[in-house]
């Protein structure tokens, strides 16, 4: 027994004795290795070439949001108007749930339109929403100009969202409208009650309706509505003929089959500058001549892309937007497939003309690690066509303001040298 305990104590002491502690403060140069970590910082002024811009990657109807804006500016008013179409149930509706017998839909008593406001500026005051009836013929090709008339003469409702939010229980007992503020997801869920005249169920149109929205506010009138799962939906309250008797039916809510937005003015045509953002979204490609001395024998610890705006960033003043730099799997020009694994971003403030800096360390490290990777940078908005914002940078042909890369790298440590 004693021997076992002694053996155990011996084993514990042995393990304890084997613990290494070698870390000591260095006192250089006397008690440090002769080799040191050498950091080099270099500005690559002529390494970016053959840059160009392309537009049309994400169109308004393909965007994840519907943008609404009414922003007077120096060069005109930025006016964005969501439009959407909700198809109906057709001319007939099932009378009973136990059989398939149907009856003609006589019309609607009312309907409730639900909208999600997924982005708004809380500094905006007196935000008003105007609902218009639009022709049901609207589609993905509908332009701002083609719906000017209904946006002028077909106003159905005006809702003051700030007033509605101030109501007790956030519900207007007169109009039947209500709003729910989702503070977790930063959303407003608007529920608008439409009467028979506002929600006309026209059987010959299969009950299809189309609406458009304009907004107004004292300042900074720019918001975004959700689409798809958070898109517009319409709850009909129908009257159906059941063998001469009118019965009420409440079918399931219908979502929008088309949800888009129209806006004016249209984006300026592309020129020699490097455009990023806007609707339809624009991207720019920058081809980088990556020096071999950095690629082959150094560790990149920081790389910064400098871009000089050719004009002030445009868009809704409150809607700063994020642009990202990404690499591509292959250089096919405008159709280069983007490598989504790595990316670096920066925030663009509308109206700013300061030099934009994007930290692209991750991308250059990936290029250094894989020499087959194309050394091409793509600049695009992080959320394409979800903001009106657009910025244009000087291209490489503008010698004084061309894009540049500042790279900080570490040379190979002289291992093995005494």
């Amino acid at each position, binding site marked *: 027994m004693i021997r076992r305990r002694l053996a155990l104590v011996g084993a514990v002491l042995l393990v304890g*004795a*084997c*613990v*290494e*502690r*070698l*870390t*000591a*403060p*260095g*006192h*250089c*140069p*006397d*008690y*440090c*290795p*002769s*080799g040191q*970590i050498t*950091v080099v*910082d270099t500005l690559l002024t002529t390494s970016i070439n053959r840059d160009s811009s392309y537009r049309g990657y994400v169109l308004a109807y393909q965007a994840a949001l519907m943008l609404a804006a009414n922003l007077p500016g120096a060069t005109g008013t930025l006016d964005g108007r969501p439009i959407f179409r909700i198809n109906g149930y057709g001319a007939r509706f099932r009378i009973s749930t136990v059989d398939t017998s149907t009856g003609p839909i006589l019309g609607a008593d009312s309907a409730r339109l639900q909208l999600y406001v997924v982005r708004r500026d809380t500094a905006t005051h007196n935000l008003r929403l105007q609902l218009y009836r639009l022709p049901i013929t609207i589609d993905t090709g509908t332009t701002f100009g083609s719906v000017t008339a209904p946006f002028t003469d077909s106003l159905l409702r005006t809702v003051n969202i700030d007033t509605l939010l101030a109501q007790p229980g956030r519900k207007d007992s007169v109009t039947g409208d209500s709003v729910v503020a989702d503070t977790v997801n930063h959303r407003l869920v608007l529920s608008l009650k439409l009467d028979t005249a506002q929600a006309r169920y026209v059987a010959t149109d299969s009950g299809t309706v189309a609406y458009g929205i304009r907004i107004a506010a004292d300042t900074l009138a720019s918001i975004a509505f959700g689409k798809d799962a958070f898109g517009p939906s319409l709850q009909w309250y129908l009257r159906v003929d059941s063998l001469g008797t009118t019965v009420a039916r409440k079918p399931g809510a219908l979502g929008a089959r088309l949800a888009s937005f129209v806006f004016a003015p249209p984006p300026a045509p592309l020129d020699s500058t490097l455009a990023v953002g806007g609707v339809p979204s624009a991207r720019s490609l920058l081809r980088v001549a990556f020096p071999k001395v950095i690629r082959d024998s150094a*560790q*990149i*610890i*920081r790389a910064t892309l400098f871009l000089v705006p050719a004009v002030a960033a445009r868009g809704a003043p409150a809607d700063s937007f994020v642009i990202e730099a990404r690499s591509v799997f292959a250089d096919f020009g405008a159709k280069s497939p983007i490598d989504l694994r790595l990316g670096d971003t920066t925030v663009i403030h509308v109206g700013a003309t300061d030099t934009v800096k994007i*930290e692209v*360390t991750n991308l250059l*490290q990936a290029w250094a690690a894989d020499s087959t990777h194309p050394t091409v940078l793509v600049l695009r908005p992080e959320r394409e066509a979800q903001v009106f914002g657009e910025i244009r940078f000087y291209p490489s042909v503008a010698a004084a303001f061309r894009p540049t890369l*500042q790279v*900080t790298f*570490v040379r*190979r*440590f*002289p*291992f*093995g*040298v*005494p």
Partner: protein
Amino acid sequence: MTHRAGWIIAVLLVGPALTGGAMAAAQDSQFGIRGLGTPGRWESVRSRSTGGAFGPFDPLSPLMEASLADVGQLTATAAGGTSNRDVLVGGTATSLRATRFPVMGVAGPVARRLAVSVGFTTYLDKSWDLTLRDSFMLRGVLQRYTDEITSDGSVADIRLAVASRLTRRIALGAGLHVLGGSTRMTAERQFDDSTFHRVQQSAEVRYDGLGVSGSVLIGLAPGLTIAGWARSDNRLRAKVADTTSALTDLPLMAGGGVLFAPSPSARLGASVAWRSWSKAGAGAFDTWTWSAGAEFGSRRMPIRLGARGGQMPFGPGTEAPTEVAGSLGTGRAFAQGRALIDLGLERLERRGGGLTERVWTVLVGLTVRP
């Protein structure tokens, strides 16, 4: 046990060194960081407990070959040591600790007048870990950073030695030394500003070299023996990924000793050695080292003590750092002398260039004679 069992033990002891997997090292020192490393001590625990004075006469110390002539039977030995080191420099003190296995080997007679030995010891210890806090201007801003540079490994001296007692008074020995080993080196820098990524580089540095040695043992009178030895190594080649990163000349070495045994229970010894480390380049110095020690009592459980001093080969400035040490130890034989355990304790101080190191080392040695 049979001879075969003995050779199995030998392979187990020496095999790791031959495959490059050994963690053989002696005693680290901050003085070795700037230079090639910290030279090892080619001594068994018994010799080291006498300050190294018995090294030339101890067949289990890989310093000399001629003493192998008296090994008598197949013998395997190994030693381990744990060092607690206090480093004082620039007003700061740091406590460090390391465990090393500086000597392993096996020796035995292969013919009536011929003995051989194979084993390894530490030639240069290259294990250290430095942290450094500093700053410099980068992109127009003062950037603060922390560096950590580490080296973990050593250069081992794998020795094949033969010895022969030519006459009752004279024994000769010769050895072939293969230097090999590797260090795992890392260099890291962490900036306070996290926009600069962490610098992280590492490499395995492999070392190789060759050396030869010769020695003589002369019995002048009953109980009085003198020894002399010399060694020459060519160069130490450092390779990183099959590319030679450094070629460093290695020193010539020579030394001698005297052992006086006035009675069977008292043995007194002294030794001296010279090494031309200045060949290794700037910041290296030729060194002289001396030692004196004694062993009292029966061989079954003796008492040993010793002292040594001398110079360190690497250091800043124009003068070599110095070291002085005192040691004591004992041993215990088991199984009718077939197994021996040696224990030693050493107190060492190194000084030079504003740096002082004080080291306590506990040594344990195991010797088996199957």
